[in-house]
Each structure stands twice: as C-alpha cells, then as structure tokens.
C-alpha cells in the first residue's frame, strides 16, 4: 500500500504509556492496531489513501510540542512520539465526533441491512455517548435512490466518509459518484444521467461503514447474525479473488471480498460478487437427463451413467474427445484427466475453447505473479485482452501500480481498452501483426510502418521497454484471429530475453488448474508431457496413457463435424455459445455420434447431448482452484447442490468404475494428496499446506522451482523406485514442460478491400453465470460494429445505419458506430451479446478474419 520505497526502520513509539515497535512510514492507526490498541475509525481504509475526514480517530499525539489532537490515520509514526488514545481529551473528542455522526443519522437500524455488522453501531456502543442531546429535526433525503442497476443509496444514513467516492475515483477510476452540495447538505450522488455503472460498484457496498449503500441482490434478504460463512476463492474469472461465501438456510446470499495481499486486496468485480445468482437459479439441473425417443427426459442416475458408460465403451479411445474443464476444481480436473487419459486413453482433451493459448505456452514460459507484474516502478508489456472486461480485479491491481506506484504500461492490441488511459503508450496494430510488432520492438526501431504501427511509436515503446524490469501479460486480445500472433510475440520475447516473466491472461475460472491437471492435448497432470511422464503414470496405476498427442479444441470440433468423433464429452463446456466460431461448434455437435454433457444448466450445447449429467458448481464443491499465476487456493463447499447433482470428480469415478477401472479417488482431500504425490509440479501442494496460514493467500511459490525435476530419461526405465513413496522425498519426478517456440502461421498480406475483424468479450455477456444471475442478466450491451471514423467515408456508410458484414464463413447485419479506439482498417465487435450473433463471421482455422462491410 505504501508508496515509500525506502526500507522501513523500526522505531519506538509510546502508545498509552506502553512502548511499541513501529516501522517508519507506518501510520499511527496501523502501528497502534498491530500492537493491540484499536483506534476507532470510519473513513480510514487500509487499501486507500487516508483523508482524515471523519475525525473519529483523533487521538492526542505528542511529538515534542505538547499533546495535540491529531487524526491517527494521517500521521506517520515518528521516533519518540507519544500517543494517548485513552486520555480525557481524546475520549471527549471521540464522544463528540460520534454524537455528531449520529445526530442526523436515522435510527432505522431494525430495518437496516447493515444492522449487526455496522461499524457505526459497533463503535457507538464502544466509544459513543449514551444518549443524544439532539432534539432538532434530522436531515432528510429521499429514501433509497438507485444509483445503478445494482446499488441503492440511502443518503440519510450516509456519514460522508468518502470511502465509496474514494474507491470509485481512486481505486476503480470510475468517478461516477461524488460529493455534492456543501455543509450539512452535503450528499453523495451520481451526476445527472450518469448512473454508477461501474464493474466494481459492489465494493462500495462492502466498504460502506453504515447502511447507506446496499446491493439489490442482498437487500432485506438476511440479518448478519443469521449468516453462515466460509472462505473460498472466486472462479468467475481466473484472477482467483478470495471471497467470503455467506449463506443462510442452504442458500447463497452474499459474497464478500477477503483482503489477501498477493491477489485481490479485498476487492471483487460485480460479476464475481453478484454472480451467485446463478448458483441459486431455478433452472439448475437437479438430476441427470437422457435422450429417450428424441427428447431429453429425467432418468435415474444409474441409467444415465450406464448410458454414458455404454457410449464410451463402444467407442475406440481415439474417437473419444473431452472438451472443457475450466469450471472444475483441480481435484475434479485431475479425476477427469485420469479417466480420459489414464483409463479411456484418449488425448483429444482440451479445457480451452479456441479462445486461449497453447498449454505449453502458458505452462512453459517463465511465470510472473500479480505482485511481480504490479511491482512499483516496473514496466509491463500488455499483450492481453481488455483486462477490465476479462480479469477485472487484475485491472484494479495494474491501475494501482500505474497510478500510485509508478509502473509503466506498454499496451499492444488492435483496439483501445480502459488500460489505454493508464498506458504510457498504446500501439494499435493490424490484427494478426502482434508478432512482427514485437520483433520490431525488440530490435528497438523500425524504418517503416510495422503491422500498422508508425516507426516513431515503435521507437517510443521500445525505449520504455529498454529500461528493463519488464514483465509481460499474455493473452488473446482478439478472438477473430488465431493465437499465432501473440504466440509469435511471446516466442520472440523469450528468445531475446529468457529472464522475462509472463502472467497468463486466460480468463476461464480454473483453466490454469485444468491445464496443470493435464486437460490439454499432449499433457499429463503436473505440467508435464506425454513423452516425459507416460511411464511415470503407467507405473502409478494408469492403465492406458495415450501415445500420441491429440487434438486441441478446434481440431476436436473439426473432427466431430467430420464425423470422426464417436463420443464427445462436454465438461461444463458450451461450445455452441462459447466457441468463437459458432457455426463450426454447431456442426460438431451434430456430427458427434454421442454427446455427454456434464453441466449445471441445460446449455445450448447440452440440449444437443444424449446424456446430461447434472453437476455441482461453485460454492457447492470443496477442493482447490488455480489462478492466472498458478496460485492454488481453497474453494469451499457452503451449500448442497440442487437435487441430486453431483461433484464432477464423482462422475469421473463412477464412469470409470462402470468402464471396469477403479480410479482410486475417494474425496477431494484424498485426490489433492494424490496430486501432491504424483504431479511433478505440485509436490508442495499438500492438503496441509493449502490449509496452513500461508495457504490462505494461495500457494504459488516453489511450484515450479522447488519441485524436483528429473533429468530426462531418468526414472523411465523399468524397475525404478517404488511407486507409492510420497513427495517430496520420493523418486525424482518427470520433467515439467519447458517452452519451445511452437510453429506459427503468419497473417496474410493486407487486402485493401477488406476490414480485419477484432472480436472481444465484455464482462456481462450471454454466458451462463451472468444470464442466470438476476442482478446481472440485464447488464449486457447491444451488438454493434465499430469502425474508425476514417473508414466511414471510405465505405460510404453513415453512423447508426445497419450494414451487412460478410466474412468467408458467414454474414451478419449490424448497426455501425464510429470509434476512435478502433484502428484504421479494423472492424470491432463484441462476442456473445444480445442481438445479431457475430460468431458466424469467425473462421477459427484462419489466422485473421477479413470482412467486407457494405450498406444493407
């Protein structure tokens, strides 16, 4: 939090007559609290700059010139400082401030959601006067006004502590709420016609010290003392924010952010915070379905499982494919990897849906933590999607690094994003040209335009990157082009600077855990390859380990569409809605002989399935999850799943049993033990470590470095050491995957008559979690085509009119809008929003998507 870079020294400060140790730069309020003296406060929040406004923390501080009342949240400790938090003067002042705060505060605690967990209530009891001397009329405002779709504001309850407004302007950068009027009429409000439409609005509700801000999903739902809670990890995206899951009577009622230093600092995005609506949805599958006489009907579990097992048994290993797994816990992902790769013997397994990066790239490149990327004074190269839309809390961390800690961001992409406002330079390149632009950056200069970027911009960005201490955030900024561009860019960076670390910007919940557990072609659990670990796993009881690398998601769908897949297992995947090339996905589901869907909802893909196995989801399963850094942390089971829906790992174990092999998996804890015992990268990730004090922050360090990696060839010979010796004292494990630059296709030359498509995602889309959460479902935006204003004249179209966009694979009619954030010659769309669907425009097998735009 602190901006000071000088190493802290320990100094002695006297608090209430007791000498305590404090660190230079530390605020009095922090030093006192660390040493057991709590100073009451309202406006102070450890993750925001102090403002000293509420005056509740005024205490007598003597720095040699006699005691004076000073706000403890604004004054840094100094050697010899004497603090008295219990003097008569202090007590009178604090009494007075509380009385002031209460005189206009309505006494509607009995109907206030904050009652029972209200700092104003609590501190009034601890520090306040017994009764009020205020006999005048209280200040009145219209009772709650909606300041956004999710947040209601009761200005009568507000004590004007500046927490929400500071969060909005300083932390989120969405300065949409502000103080208005003055004196006793001061109020927090939005500006006319500009609602508090922030992706982070829920944080203001959590940090509000009174009941002024409430969120519609929780309003009047429960009293705090009725809530039962468990600490967990959010899996809405892959940042891995720590949460407090709160429920009552087996229903999730609220998620609160938990402050962990390496990840989310207590913040959550609104999708993560309010997405629990989908957990409680009435449309959840509460039991298995099977296709009978052409229709999906409820069947008993035994019947559903044996139907699925029959289909698997009838298929040859090479004709079974598994798509998905990013929704699963690490333990369930391991179970399914063991079933697919160890029992069935197929390597056609991919947890990603064509919108990610090759697993070897994610796992093989040197990895950075969020703290390393957001280090003070560091330089970040962003080759990533819009972080605010896809990894919102990472955006907050990066924003803090830039705004407060002097980090420098160089952004590469084909469309400006909210990060562009923070970036020192944003290079808008032609879709598909990331690789050549990065090569030019590494060269330091260019003599001519590279990929649509001017030489001057290249030189400017190269100079920034040349200062060293660079980390890279790597992901897919454009889903209408293949991953080849960013992979080429990453390969070039790694070749030139092997010490540079990469932070994955893959979005899906536990995609990194799924890749770790081997749910990707060519990989086995523990970030290792078929070649390196086949023998290792064979010896550990895996009857069938594939011999050849299988298909990725694109190839699986192409094979299925071509009738080459007998059984397609959808592991929480909905390719019809979610694969960028929707047309291919639809053909694939039709072409697969049998489809087994494991899901929480009857998704548009599951509707094509022959068997649907109802699965338990977030907050219903226990285990671990893995975030973008590779950090492993706990997810908690807080409620029971609907009906007879079951954990994913149980389904794998059941199917395996029906196929004649006992997976030997009995519980998430036991699976985690097995992972720690066998997975080369996970030797230190034992249940005990995960549940230790440091495990609360998640375990990331040492996963790669400390796991004893075997030299190639070692341990592969028959007759090696016994198999059941647990790590880390056990036998040398197979080598983890290392990065070798994959072959990539260069983008074709520019076609002057076409525009290149840029397809991105937004936080709120037609995805399952959003659409089944009542608070979020309506927050999607319309589908429009965005062009640089320059291209309007060239195409002869007018803003707002509907145009026909034609690609090789399909066409769509869309309204067109000018957007300076789109590069010239590019056309930007957002996938998966209401209105005309643009997935049909994307050809997943092409490096870039060229479109023609004509007047309708």
């Amino acid at each position, binding site marked *: 939090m602190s901006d000071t870079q000088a190493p802290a020294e320990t100094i002695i400060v006297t608090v209430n007559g007791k000498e305590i140790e404090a660190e230079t730069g530390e605020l009095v309020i922090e030093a006192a609290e660390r040493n057991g003296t709590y100073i009451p406060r309202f406006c102070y929040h450890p993750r925001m700059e102090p*403002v*000293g*406004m*509420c*005056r*509740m923390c*005024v205490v007598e501080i003597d720095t040699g010139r006699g005691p*004076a*009342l000073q*706000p403890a949240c*604004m*004054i840094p400790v100094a050697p010899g400082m004497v603090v008295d938090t219990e003097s008569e*003067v202090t007590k*009178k*002042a604090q*009494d*007075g*401030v509380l*009385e*002031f*705060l209460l*005189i*206009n505060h309505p006494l509607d605690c009995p109907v206030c959601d904050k009652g029972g967990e209200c700092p104003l209530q609590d501190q009034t009891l601890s520090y306040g006067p017994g009764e009020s*001397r*205020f006999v*005048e*009329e209280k200040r009145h405002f219209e009772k709650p006004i909606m300041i956004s779709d999710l947040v209601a504001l009761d200005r009568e309850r507000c*004590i*004007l502590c500046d927490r929400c407004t500071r969060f909005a302007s300083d932390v989120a950068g969405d300065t949409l709420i*502000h*103080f208005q*009027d*003055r*004196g*006793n*009429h*001061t109020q927090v409000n939005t500006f006319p016609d500009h609602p508090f439409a922030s992706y982070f609005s829920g944080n203001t509700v959590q940090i509000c010290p009174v009941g002024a801000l409430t969120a519609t999903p929780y309003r009047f739902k429960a009293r705090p003392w009725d809530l039962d809670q468990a600490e967990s990890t959010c899996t809405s995206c892959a940042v891995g924010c720590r949460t407090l899951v709160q429920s009552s009577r087996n229903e999730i009622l609220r998620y609160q952010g938990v402050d962990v230093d390496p990840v989310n600092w207590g913040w959550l995005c609104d999708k993560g915070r309010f997405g629990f609506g989908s957990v409680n949805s009435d449309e959840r599958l509460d039991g298995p379905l099977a296709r009978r006489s052409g229709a999906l009907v409820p069947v008993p579990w035994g019947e559903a499982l044996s139907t699925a097992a029959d289909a698997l048994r009838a298929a040859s290993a090479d004709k079974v494919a598994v798509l998905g797994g990013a929704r699963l816990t690490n333990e369930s992902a391991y179970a399914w990897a063991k079933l697919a790769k160890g029992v069935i013997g197929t390597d056609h397994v991919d947890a990603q849906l064509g919108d990610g990066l090759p697993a070897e790239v994610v796992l093989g490149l040197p990895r950075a933590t969020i703290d390393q990327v957001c280090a003070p004074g560091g330089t970040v190269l962003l080759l990533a999607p819009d972080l605010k839309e896809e990894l919102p809390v990472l955006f907050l961390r990066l924003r803090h690094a830039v705004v407060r800690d002097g980090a420098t961001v160089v952004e590469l992409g084909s469309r400006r994003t909210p990060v562009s406002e923070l970036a020192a330079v944003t290079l808008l390149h032609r879709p598909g040209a990331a690789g050549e632009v990065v090569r030019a950056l590494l060269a330091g200069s260019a003599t001519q335009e590279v990929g649509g970027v001017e030489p001057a911009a290249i030189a400017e960005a190269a100079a920034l990157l040349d200062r060293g201490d660079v980390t890279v955030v790597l992901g897919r900024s454009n889903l209408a082009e293949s991953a080849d561009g960013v992979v080429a860019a990453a390969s070039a960076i790694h070749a030139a600077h092997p010490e540079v670390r990469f932070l994955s910007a893959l979005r899906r919940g536990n995609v990194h855990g799924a890749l770790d557990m081997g749910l990707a072609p060519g990989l086995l659990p523990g970030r290792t390859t078929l070649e390196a670990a086949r023998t290792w796993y064979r010896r550990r009881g895996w009857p069938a380990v594939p011999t050849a690398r299988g298909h990725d998601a694109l190839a699986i769908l192409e094979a299925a569409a071509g009738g080459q897949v007998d059984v397609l297992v959808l592991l929480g995947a909905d390719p019809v809605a979610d694969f960028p090339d929707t047309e291919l996905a639809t053909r694939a589901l039709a072409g697969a002989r049998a489809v087994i869907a494991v899901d929480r909802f009857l998704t548009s893909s599951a509707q094509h399935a022959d068997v649907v196995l109802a699965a338990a989801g977030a907050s219903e399963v226990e285990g671990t999850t893995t975030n973008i850094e590779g950090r492993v942390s706990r997810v908690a089971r807080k409620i029971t799943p609907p009906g007879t829906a079951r954990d994913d790992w149980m389904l794998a174990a059941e199917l395996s049993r029906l196929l004649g092999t006992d997976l030997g998996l009995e519980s998430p804890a036991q699976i985690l033990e097995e992972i720690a015992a066998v997975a080369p990268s996970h030797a230190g990730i034992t249940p005990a470590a995960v549940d230790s004090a440091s495990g609360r922050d998640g375990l990331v360090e040492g996963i790669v470095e400390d796991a004893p990696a075997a030299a190639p060839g070692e341990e592969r010979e028959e007759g090696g050491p016994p198999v059941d010796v647990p790590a880390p004292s056990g036998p040398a494990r197979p080598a983890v995957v290392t990065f070798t630059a994959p072959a990539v296709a260069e983008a074709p030359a520019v076609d002057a008559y076409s525009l290149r498509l840029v397809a991105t995602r937004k936080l709120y889309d037609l995805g399952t979690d959003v659409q089944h959460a009542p608070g979020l479902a309506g927050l999607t935006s319309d589908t429009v085509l965005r062009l640089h204003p320059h291209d309007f004249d060239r195409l002869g179209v007018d803003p707002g009119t509907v145009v026909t966009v034609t690609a090789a694979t399909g066409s769509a009619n869309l309204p067109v809008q000018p957007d300076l954030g789109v590069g010239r010659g590019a056309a930007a769309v957002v996938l998966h929003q209401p209105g005309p669907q643009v997935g049909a425009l994307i050809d997943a097998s092409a490096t870039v998507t060229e479109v023609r735009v004509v007047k309708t």
Partner: protein
Amino acid sequence: MTVTNAAPIVSTRCGLDDGHTLDVYLATGGYDGFKAALAKAPTVVGDEVKAANLLGRGGAGFPAGTKWGFCPPGVWPRYLVVNGDESEPGTYKDRLLMEKDPHQLIEGVLIACYAIGAAQAFLYVRGEMALAQERIAQALNDAYAAGYIGKNILGSEFSVDVVLHWGAGAYIVGEETALIESLEGNRGMPRLKPPFFPAAKGLYLQPTVVNNVETLANLPWIMTNGSAAFTKLGTERAPGTRLFAISGHVKNPGVFEVEYGVTTFRDLIYAPLYCGGIRDGNELKAFIPGGGSAPWFLPEHVDMPLDPSVVGPSGSMLGSGAIVVMDSTTDVVKACWRLVRFYARESCGKCTPCREGTSWLEKILARLLAGEGRPTDLDLLLDVVDNISPAPFPKAKTEAGDWEAVPFPYKKTTICDLGPSVGSPIVSALLHFRDEFESYANRGVPVEVTLV
C-alpha cells in the same frame, strides 16, 4: 488618540476614478518597483522583503519573506497563488485593491514570482466580485500587451504567466489548501496539514506560495522605497501600514489605511478622520476585531493597538482586518445566530465536527430565537463548540470576568479553522452577554438590551 495620518502605501490610487488603468498606473510610478526588483538578484529581493518584515495581510499574519523561504530548494516548478477569495464576514479591503488598483497587485505578483522563481502565477478571485475580475482581466491584458507579463519581460531573462481564475462562491476557498484544491478543479475542500503544507506540496503537489492580495500590493512600494522606509512605519512587530475594513454601527464605515501597530481600535472607530464614532450617538456594545471568526472584544478593549502581537495574546485576532462594530441596540443572540448561520452554510462538509456541529449550533440558536429554547441549551451550545474546538477557547479578559485571557489560536478536532470559527461568536456572546441568552431561553422574548 494616536492618529498618525501616515502617507498610504497601498491605497494611493483608490481615490482616483481611473486608477485601474495602465496609463494612470504608469503615470503614478507604476511598475517602478518591479523594475527596481529586476535590477537585483532574486535572493536580494527576497531578503529585502524579509527585512521589511511584511506580515501577511490575509489573516494568519505570517511574515511573507519567511514564508517564501519555506519552498524546498531545487524543487521546480513552483507556483505563486494569489488568494483573492476575500470572504471573511466584514472584510472588503482586498476587493477595493483589486477593483481600484489591479496593476499594483499584478506588479506585486511579478515581484514575488521573481523572488521565489515562479514562472506561473494564479490569481484566484472570489466569484462574487465581478468588477474586480473584470478589471484584473483588463489589467492583465494591458500588462501583457505592454510587455510586463509574458516572455522575457522588459528584455530580461525573466518570464512569467499569470492566470486569472474565478471562484465559484465558497468561503472555504479562502483557506489556502481548499483554494489549491479548487484551482486544481476539485471540490474546494481543505487538505490536511501536515502533510500538505503548500510551501512543500501545494498546487499540483509542487512548492506553492499562497499570498494575500494586500500583502502583494505592498511589494512595489517596498521595492521602490526600500525596507528601511517600510519598517519606519508602524512598530517593530507590525511594520508598515494596513487596511482595515470597518462595518457596523459607526457613522462612517469604510476601508482605511492606517499605520500598523500604532493606531488603536479607538482611533479607527472614533477619529473623525476614520469612522467618526458610533451612529446615532449610541454607545459601543462590543466589536469584532478581525472578521467574523475572531472572538469579540468589549468597549474596555478599545484602546488596544492594532498589533497582532498584542491582540493575539489578548484572546482574539486581527485576522483579515475587518472590524465589526455593534452598538447598544444590538440583539446579541441574533447577531450570534447570524454569524453562526454563515459558518453553517459555508462549511464544506468534509470533516464531521464542522459539517454536523455548525448546523446543529445554528438550529439551537434559531430555536432560541423562535422562543422554543430551554435553559440547558446554553451549556449545550458551549459543549458542542467544545467538541469542535476543545477547551480552552480563546477569549478576552474583562474587568467583570473572573477568568484569564486565553490567547489565540484555537485548538480543533477539525481539519481547518472554519469549524472552530463558529465558536467565536458563541463563546464570546455567551461569555459577555449570557443574560440575553437566558432571557430567550426562559421566556422566549428578548430582554430589553442593557449596556455592559
């Protein structure tokens, strides 16, 4: 009486109809002081002002030359900000200087910028002063055209730009850190000192000198005539002359430039040259020596000299140079309420005690005046003040009272001095005129006003 009738320093052109024009300004020695300054090294100019011991004329009375020296060396850029947001109740002297002699202010700005090494000055003028804004704008244009402002002024290496900024009408913006916030485009709310002392971290977190209009208007004269001539006027602790704005129940209210530290309140109020005594032959009841925020004085204090080093220890302040005179017809409770209402309405709302306390006090007083007071309200008023400004509150010693004087300034639980300011009328009035409050509290009707 010690009416010295010394030659004025800053108000020489206030009597002229066209003193605000460049032509008249130049014809009356305008910009000579700046030229004299340009001929010296900046440090010499700074030393000259320090030697003049020119006390700040805005309220706090801090020596300007010393203040300039607080800018950390080697930190650039640094700014000069002119506090023209004069709005302390009773004060209207800076307005006169801005309306009648804007070039003198601009010349002072140039001298100060030269001395501190600022290339950019900001003139923050109160929103309600339309004529002042108009005339300063015209004067700036004329000075730019004549080459007194801009690049390489008068052929020298010295360049400076002056920006005129209009306030939006808020008393709090007279507080220097709130003024800086407002200049930056934020809500005018004070910053906490520490850590934001403007000299170190001011406008855009750069070293910033904030000076009052009258302070700067003294600089041309000091440059032309030297600090020795300046310190010959007034006293050692309060040299030069000073403008005082007198309002209230006097025969001839107005702004008067008098010799500092020598002249007494009695001179200002009673001398025929100045206010000429109390109106209608009434008796003096009380007076506020330094603007609405200052604790009140009684007739027995009227022989005190206009010297901050005397007034401060006596329990009040000369503040912004505004003397408000109340005669025997004054309803003290109403006067008190009127001042309290001002602070309640002008509180910026940033910190709790001021935001809630000032309006609570106003409500209690309004209730008293409406005849709905309770005897306990009087002690409640004092205790609410105590929660904004912990005891002991500054007050003057009187012959009748059994207390010692409590010197200025006040203690506070607030960020700035606006909150404690509300205590001045309440504590003073209740201290000296408690019977009037009691009569409101007991019977709901005012007592027939008695002389003290």
